[in-house]
């Protein structure tokens, strides 16, 4: 079926048609809801509530974006999320790179157990220990402080990072490392000078995946922040009133909160697909 060319026999042609039905149906399902929201965010007030709905805004209202972006209850959440996701990504990488390297290369007791332990962390959903996470964050005096958000996020990022990185490190030829070790280089030097440059794409993929996960997290942020340290997902939800919803501001805020990561994911598509599928390969 792959790359079928030349005169197609009936069953090949039928499967080609089936393929395009699949492409259009699933593609539309994934794309349309988000695209619809982006279009909605540009509509004027009467157009929001038009019934039946209008597809394209007649005169796009970009000014609402400016208003929402600088809104006193939204801009700080955006700034917090930039700081939180960036620090989370950097610290997680610093912790995960040596750990993944050791998990792949060191011959030592308890290696498999440790790997399983790290991956099993992904099975503990934050909601299941949320109460004591809250207590812990209070105990450290970082409630409603961005570090109260960052510290749990690092813990969440660690299994993700290990999941992505171990498989990338496995693909580095051992011979290169062994040659360097014979030449008298230390383990850490080997990691820094040989493994790190060779796994740069893997590290970039892990960084993006960790960043996006931290940027999108909601439950923990809802629990450990009150006002000053709110992140952008909370910022978006704040536009939902209790009884009435201002769809204009809400959709604009949602687009501001999501478009940067969506664009980053699309630009780095190959990297992310490789990163996410790499972990599963060695499972």
């Amino acid at each position, binding site marked *: 079926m*792959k790359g079928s060319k030349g005169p197609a026999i009936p069953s090949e042609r039928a*499967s080609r048609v089936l*393929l*395009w039905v699949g*492409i259009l149906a*699933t*593609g539309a399902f*994934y*794309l349309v*809801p*988000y695209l619809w*929201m982006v279009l*909605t965010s540009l509509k004027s007030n009467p157009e929001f509530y*038009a*019934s*039946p*709905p209008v597809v394209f805004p007649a005169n796009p209202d970009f000014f609402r974006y400016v208003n929402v972006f600088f809104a006193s209850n939204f801009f700080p959440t955006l700034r917090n999320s930039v700081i939180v996701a960036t620090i989370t990504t950097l610290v997680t990488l610093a*912790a*995960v790179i*040596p750990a993944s390297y*050791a998990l792949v290369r060191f011959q030592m007791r308890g290696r498999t157990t440790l790997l399983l332990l*790290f991956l099993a*962390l*992904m*099975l*503990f*959903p934050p*909601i*299941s*220990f*949320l*109460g*004591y*996470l809250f*207590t*812990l964050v209070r105990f450290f005096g970082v409630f409603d402080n961005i570090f109260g958000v960052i*510290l*749990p996020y690092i*813990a969440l990022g660690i*299994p993700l990072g290990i999941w992505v990185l171990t498989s990338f490190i496995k693909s580095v030829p051992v011979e290169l490392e062994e040659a360097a070790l014979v030449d008298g280089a230390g383990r850490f030097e080997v990691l820094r000078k040989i493994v790190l440059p060779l796994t740069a794409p893997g590290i970039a993929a892990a960084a993006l995946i960790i960043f996006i996960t931290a940027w*999108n997290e*909601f*439950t923990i942020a809802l629990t450990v922040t009150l006002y000053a340290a709110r992140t952008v*997902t909370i910022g*978006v939800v704040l536009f*939902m009133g209790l009884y009435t919803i201002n*769809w204009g501001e*809400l959709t604009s805020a*949602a687009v501001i*909160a999501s478009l940067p990561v*969506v664009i*980053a*994911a*699309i630009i780095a598509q190959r990297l*992310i*697909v490789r990163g996410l*599928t*790499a972990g*599963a*390969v060695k499972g």
Partner: protein
Amino acid sequence: MAKARYERVYPYLYFFPALFFAAIFVLFPALQTVYASFFYLRVNVPSPQNYMFVGFENYRILFSDQRFYNSIMNSLIYTLSSVFGIFLLSLITALVANESFRGRTIYRACILIPWAVANVVASQQWKYLYQPGFGLVNWLLYWLGLVSDPNTYNLLTHPTAAMLGLIITNVWKSAPFVALILLGGLQSIPDDFYEAAKVDGAGPWRRFRSLTLPLLVPYINIGLLFAGLVAGTVIDIVYVITQGGPGNATEVMPLYLYRVYFWSWDFGVAGAFSTFMVVFSILTMILLIRSLVKYLLKA
């Protein structure tokens, strides 16, 4: 001597930072939660009874709560339907994304959109589509002849429809991740296998049933385990779209658990609930995936 000890300890230094964060911010609170489930703990009311050992009393309280059973049922419906939908959609998506056709890059970009969007954003976007009058979904239902008046029909006020709305949102959000894992599996199948099957005269359907599907099983396992655990334990989609309503018709376990934690502040019962939820979700998912895989391999 000292050097030998250093050599032995040295590898573990590489783990220390990762283990440190994981232990303090996941393992420690998780163990504390299990521990707390055996104590009387009302953190918002200081009382001498607090921290008193009560054995399985919290579990007894939990298991005599109607609302708890309601949340289990809702979680089961939500999770099982989601996993089923995610399985079908992600399989189709992965098969499509693995073919070569013009515009495949654009198609793969589309897959990444739901993955990259936050649950909160995905939820409010679908919520807008579900609104009466100006919501697109209502009009689709109207054009399909399923709804008589799109201006008054409100999907989110009907228990079953609201649940379906949540499931669709969850499938939209989770299917891409599973699809990418399955895609990784498809790419690991050597082309020779297909060539050999073709030579033996196996048609596309036959090749899919007896070659692709069995080889995909380990990837289906991992992908669905993740998707199922996420569906069974995440609150944000329900929190934004229905808040558990109408009534408690869509109050799933994690949402009710959140309320036990931060509305009633009963950490003892919440601890019992947490422990139950994690064990229950993992067991359900293992059972579900086992039977699904068995079915796929047998049929």
